[in-house]
């Protein structure tokens, strides 16, 4: 595994403190510049991430389109208002034109023009929805089940049999306790790291089947462009196709209030190249077989931390090792 590259992608870029418009502009020019460095993938701290999937790029464009339309309208409307505030002041002796109370013509204009702008925005948005909702022809399906407060990932298709839970990593969990005395800044990826990340291949269409065992959760990795709810009794779908070359670790969180520890069930996805992914699947299957052949009790939590793959291969339904 190319650790250096992963780190590079994963690092949060330094936060810029320039004026708002400059921030937006730099974000936009980042898009036009395309390609760019790997660190452009994550959010710059004030705008949506462009993300690393086919859909996240589309969604980012819809976002930037509507943002610019809003900024343009804001400049016009606020500009007009400010002009009026400066120009028509009582203290400057402005005389009110009390006959100006109605104009069918301008009222029709400022009804029709917004309608046209809305239609112009609705078309690309609608096309994007068609793409988002097309979950057919996926190469790999993974069932994601939400629990209070952890995720379970169960692989299907070529990776059938791999199944594991993913919970907040022990160091974050310790640091996040009330009066823990630990500085969150000293914990790597505080609140955004897990014991066992979801592993998916890049370049292929991965379909997630989302459901919940208790209350409603929502699975959200901003760099993948989407979130979707996990609802008991329902199976929701969403798809991810990470662009080749964008392998790395991506992080997100549960986005639907799901109780006391809602803020403490992060999502970490390790995107590997198809070849690396294949190897990972084989390793997992081998470990699974080994575990089934020798069903001796798993070790203590410290062993678990040292050997995540064995835990990862744990069959669904087995109780989790107690959190540290």
């Amino acid at each position, binding site marked *: 595994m190319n650790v250096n590259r992963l780190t590079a992608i994963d690092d949060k870029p330094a936060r810029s403190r320039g004026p708002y418009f400059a921030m937006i502009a730099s974000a936009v020019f980042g898009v036009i510049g395309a390609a760019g460095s790997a660190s452009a993938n994550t959010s710059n701290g004030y705008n949506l991430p462009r993300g690393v999937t086919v859909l996240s790029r589309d969604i980012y464009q819809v976002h930037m389109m509507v943002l610019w339309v809003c900024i343009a309208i804001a400049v016009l409307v606020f500009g*007009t208002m400010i002009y009026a505030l400066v120009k028509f002041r009582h203290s400057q002796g*402005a005389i*009110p*034109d009390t006959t100006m109370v*109605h104009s069918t013509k301008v009222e029709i204009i400022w009804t029709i023009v*917004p309608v046209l702008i809305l239609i112009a925005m609705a078309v690309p948005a609608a096309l994007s929805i068609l793409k*988002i909702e097309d979950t057919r022809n996926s190469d790999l399906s993974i069932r994601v089940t939400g629990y209070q407060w952890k995720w379970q990932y169960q692989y299907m298709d070529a990776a059938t049999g791999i199944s594991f839970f993913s919970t907040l990593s022990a160091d974050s969990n310790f640091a996040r306790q*009330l009066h823990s005395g630990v500085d969150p800044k000293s914990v790597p990826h505080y609140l955004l790291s897990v014991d066992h990340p979801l592993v998916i291949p890049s370049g292929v269409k991965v379909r997630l089947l989302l459901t919940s065992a208790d209350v409603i959760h929502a699975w959200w990795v901003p760099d993948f462009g989407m979130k979707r709810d996990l609802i008991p009794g329902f199976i929701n779908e969403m798809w991810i196709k990470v662009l080749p070359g964008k392998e790395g670790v991506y992080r997100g969180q549960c986005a639907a209030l799901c109780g006391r520890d809602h*803020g403490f069930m992060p999502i970490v996805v390790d995107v590997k190249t198809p070849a690396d992914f294949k190897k990972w699947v084989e390793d997992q299957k081998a470990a699974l077989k080994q575990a089934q052949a020798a069903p001796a009790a798993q070790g203590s939590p410290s062993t678990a931390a040292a050997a995540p793959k064995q835990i990862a291969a744990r069959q669904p339904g087995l109780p989790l090792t107690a959190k540290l």
Partner: protein
Amino acid sequence: MAHATDTAHDAHDDQPATGIKRWLFATNHKDIGTMYLVFSLIMFFVGGTMAMIIRAELFEPGLQLVDPGFFNEMTTMHALVMIFGAVMPAFVGLANWMIPLQVGAPDMALPRMNNFSFWILPFAFTLLLSTLFVPGGAPAGGWTMYPPLALQFGDSFPMLIFAIHLMGVSSIMGAINVIVTILNMRAPGMSLLKMPLFCWSWLITAYLLIAVMPVLAGAVTMLLTDHFFGTSFFNAAGGGDPLMFEHIFWFFGHPEVYIMILPAFGVISEIIPTFSRKPLFGASSMIYAIASIAFLSFIVWGHHMFADGMPLAAQMFFMMSTMLIAVPTGVKVFNWTATMWRGSLSFEPPMLFALGFLFMFTIGGFSGLMLALVPADFQYNQSYFVVAHFHYVLVPGAVFSIMGAVYYWLPKWTGNMYNMKLAKTHFWLSTIFVNVLFFPQHFLGLAGMPRRIPDYAVQFTDWNMVSSIGAFGFGLSQILFAIAIIQCVRGGQKATAKVWSDATPTGLEWTIPSPAPYHSFTTAPEVH
């Protein structure tokens, strides 16, 4: 005018009853309006204190002050208290005070029901706030009460539901009173189209209330039976449907949003023409715009649920219908701007708050338009971007309009002018801090911070600190509001009947003396 006799009890004495009886047995619309407004102000500070706790915990990463369970109680209670305790009663209070004065009626049409609808509220909120002290704590699943999470609440659960039933009953009675008063008690010659915009906005709001409060009551009653009587309306294991709650809730919830903003539109449509010294531009299109927004509010509820997984056709429908709301809302903003155009503007405190509303509500409108686009909503939904959006429309939107209304009519109510300098300071501090508070939350949401979390990853630290500083500043600034009101009630420079004699206030309320006499318009005025 058969109703008029109801208001004067045994004798036509012009003096209010003394002591507690005046308030307990109040049937006078002015007394009841005052009680609503005072109640609302108290709840504004109660809900605000909860917001301060939330922002204090979010000042930096890590948990320093409260545990996550209590944090969730605070977010839930903050929303319930602010929506049902602060904003809605404030508008009902304004309706009580101003609708009879604006339509030239001696009182509200149903004064005893008016008393009842107010006095339910202190009980409802005692019930709601006492959940903070019951085993299991206050409701902690968000004000939206989504099952199955809501079914996990402790003893607070039935208390919450009965509190909501009481609030609903109160709102419906208030709404009936508004409708009956407006439709039956207008002064001779005041046709509906001659009626002030504040009354129009309230008339439409009242219909919305009557239409949707029973829907909320139904939804929470189903929750109650799911919890205690073994039904499975929302329990998937029993063949129920957790999503159905969201549909029912938002069928109430979206019109509810407009219940909190339409009367604000009415207030702004009163204030801007006064201080522009020019009649409202396109008054009839303003009324049509309010009516269109009210109609659209019933067919857009799905936009709260895009991320829930929805059929393609439903996503398209709810996206388009939601985007349509921008049209009548745009008409309103353009008309207000046109009202100021070639006017003669002065910047007394009510006008400042109206202008603050105009700018910042529009910002909330823009983020609303962004949220309407389904693909982008998949990112924004449930993030701090949503928090920024609805606070922009509710705080510098609805709350600023209420403050503007208070500063506009307070001299009429008390007979005294308030301290203008203090009120202007209140405005400027509020405006600066409200933006410091909520604007960075757009960035937080876009950068990936989910809402309703007590602790966050370290990359969200800076904007959270800025936001919290804004929150403390905004919270403290509101003390000035309370001081300005208390000073004004106690005394001050005497106000004239017209109050804003330098400007052009229009409407019947300015034809009676300040303070408004205890019984006004006992003889209906003629409107030409």
